[in-house]
């Protein structure tokens, strides 16, 4: 497993040495990936942590201190961003995953005709880039010209100033994310469903279990590992939410849809305050870790 000794090349004569007997090919195969992985992924993870303790506005040789972290605890904008992110997370992820589960079960049903066309509909948003669909959603929810308000007034309901009120703006972002990512989760869940043996359902029907009972007692428990996977990915994705609030609502109105993602971007790449942005980034990582542990504890017991 682990190498207790460093893999230094033994002298060429020592043909019976450990290094001589070690095959070289696997290392050569891994080397290119490993170089990129270490340079552009592993090292930045460490570097970002170190940077969060430096006041980058003082230059590269600033002393290590806790100033960024103490600033975080008092920063009102950070609190707003954190709260908005968590509100979106708590509403959007359960909404999307329950819809995706129901969809996956429906798409997997033997009763469904034209299953290919239905899959087409639900998987299509997956291909749309975030910028493209942000533009479309901004147009759809335009107060004066948007199709959504036209439809609302058409059936006698009042028009909503979607993008200029905090509650409606949040719901537009939640709707947009749900529209885009439900199909993706449904694909993964569908694949999970297809891994469940037909025999289990047949045995259950013979014993007289109704479809509803089968869903709760068979499908959901057997789908749990897949659901857990979807949940962890969705939580990590939502914690980094950037494009939708940046392009649909421009973090507004006021800072009502500012997220940790847009705040990090603003601090890092508008104010070039790298140290402080790193502290925000590590907060995202810490929250992601906490959520992952909770999810594993709650849902990953026997997996």
């Amino acid at each position: 497993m682990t190498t207790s000794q460093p893999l230094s090349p033994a002298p060429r004569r020592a043909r019976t040495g450990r290094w001589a007997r070690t095959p070289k090919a696997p290392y050569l195969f891994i080397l290119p990936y490993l170089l990129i992985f270490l340079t552009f992924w592993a090292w930045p993870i460490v570097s970002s942590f170190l940077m969060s303790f430096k006041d980058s506005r003082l230059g590269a040789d600033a002393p290590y201190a806790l100033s960024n972290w103490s600033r975080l605890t008092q920063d009102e904008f950070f609190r707003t961003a954190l709260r908005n992110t968590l509100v979106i997370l708590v509403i959007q992820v359960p909404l999307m995953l329950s819809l995706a589960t129901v969809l996956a079960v429906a798409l997997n049903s033997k009763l469904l005709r034209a299953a290919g066309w239905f899959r087409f509909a639900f998987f299509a948003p997956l291909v749309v880039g975030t910028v493209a669909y942000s533009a479309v959603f901004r147009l759809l929810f335009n107060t004066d010209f948007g199709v959504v308000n036209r439809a609302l007034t058409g059936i006698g309901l009042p028009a909503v100033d979607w993008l200029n009120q905090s509650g409606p703006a949040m719901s537009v972002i939640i709707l947009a994310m749900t529209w885009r990512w439900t199909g993706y989760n449904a694909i993964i869940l569908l694949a999970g469903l297809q891994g469940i043996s037909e025999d289990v359902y047949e045995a259950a029907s013979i014993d007289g279990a109704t479809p509803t009972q089968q869903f709760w007692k068979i499908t959901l428990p057997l789908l749990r590992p897949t659901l857990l996977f979807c949940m962890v990915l969705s939580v990590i994705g939502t914690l980094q939410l950037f494009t939708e609030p940046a392009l649909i609502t421009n973090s507004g109105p006021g800072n009502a849809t500012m997220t940790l993602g847009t705040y990090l971007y603003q601090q890092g790449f508008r104010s070039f305050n790298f140290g402080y942005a790193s502290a925000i980034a590590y907060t995202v990582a810490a929250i992601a870790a906490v959520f992952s542990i909770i999810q594993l504890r709650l849902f990953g017991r026997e997996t």
Partner: protein
Amino acid sequence: MTARPQVAAHDSPGVVARRRTSAFWLHLALLPLALLFLAPLWIMAVFSTHPETAIFSPNPPLWFGGAFLENFRGLQADTNFIRTLFNSTAIATLYTVFSMLLTSMGGYAFAKFDFPGKNWLFGLILATLTIPAFVTIIPQFILVARDLKLSNTYWAVILPTLANTIGIFYMRQAFQTVPSDLLNAARIDGASEGRIFWQIALPIVRPALAALAILLFLASWNDYLWPLIVLTQKDSYTMPVALGTLVGLTRVSWGGIMVGTAIATIPFLALFLSLQRHFVAGIAGGAVKD
């Protein structure tokens, strides 16, 4: 489209009737939902063919018009769209080729060799998988822009994203299906390790490679945040970055944006959906272990 098993002949009339009723409700529930999922795409495609006056008229069009070229010319004038189209294609292609090469070589080694440090290395890669990409974005920027001075180049966009951890897991799983006896037989015949990989192992996992290639291409094609950070000159923009600058403006040219988003989306939609079956298998292969 999959062939669905028909109702079994020996079922009683009551069971058949009950099946018909539930099938009816199933379709009744799914159909509006499916239309809701398709509606934004339909509106995007239709609006790209109408002048702005029609888009903002009291009765917005629901069918295609004739202003596509006019909208495209406006878009081209605003963003040098053809240039950004070229940039996006070049970046996504280079990224896909290099990423496939790196992850398939690495995945092959993890799947088909035993070597000192293997578990330790794989554990390291596994451990970083749940870390949000956001954590690395600032050091990556400093590395690429300040240390390597690559801002506004294709490599600035490509290099950091090549560290694709999901890809290496996916390829490792694909190569685990290749029989080791086959590789050993080639070794006995005196084939070099490189040749065994290139001419025997790689062709066997071709379906997995195809699915991965399209997912990688799509991810790169649609990526927004990282290109936005490292590309600062208009001529180096990728398509999402160029469209993003338009959307961010207060005076928005919606006809042009709809053309841009339609061009960015519809060819891939067609490709993706024609290969749908591979994706269900492909995404599942990457997602669900054991």
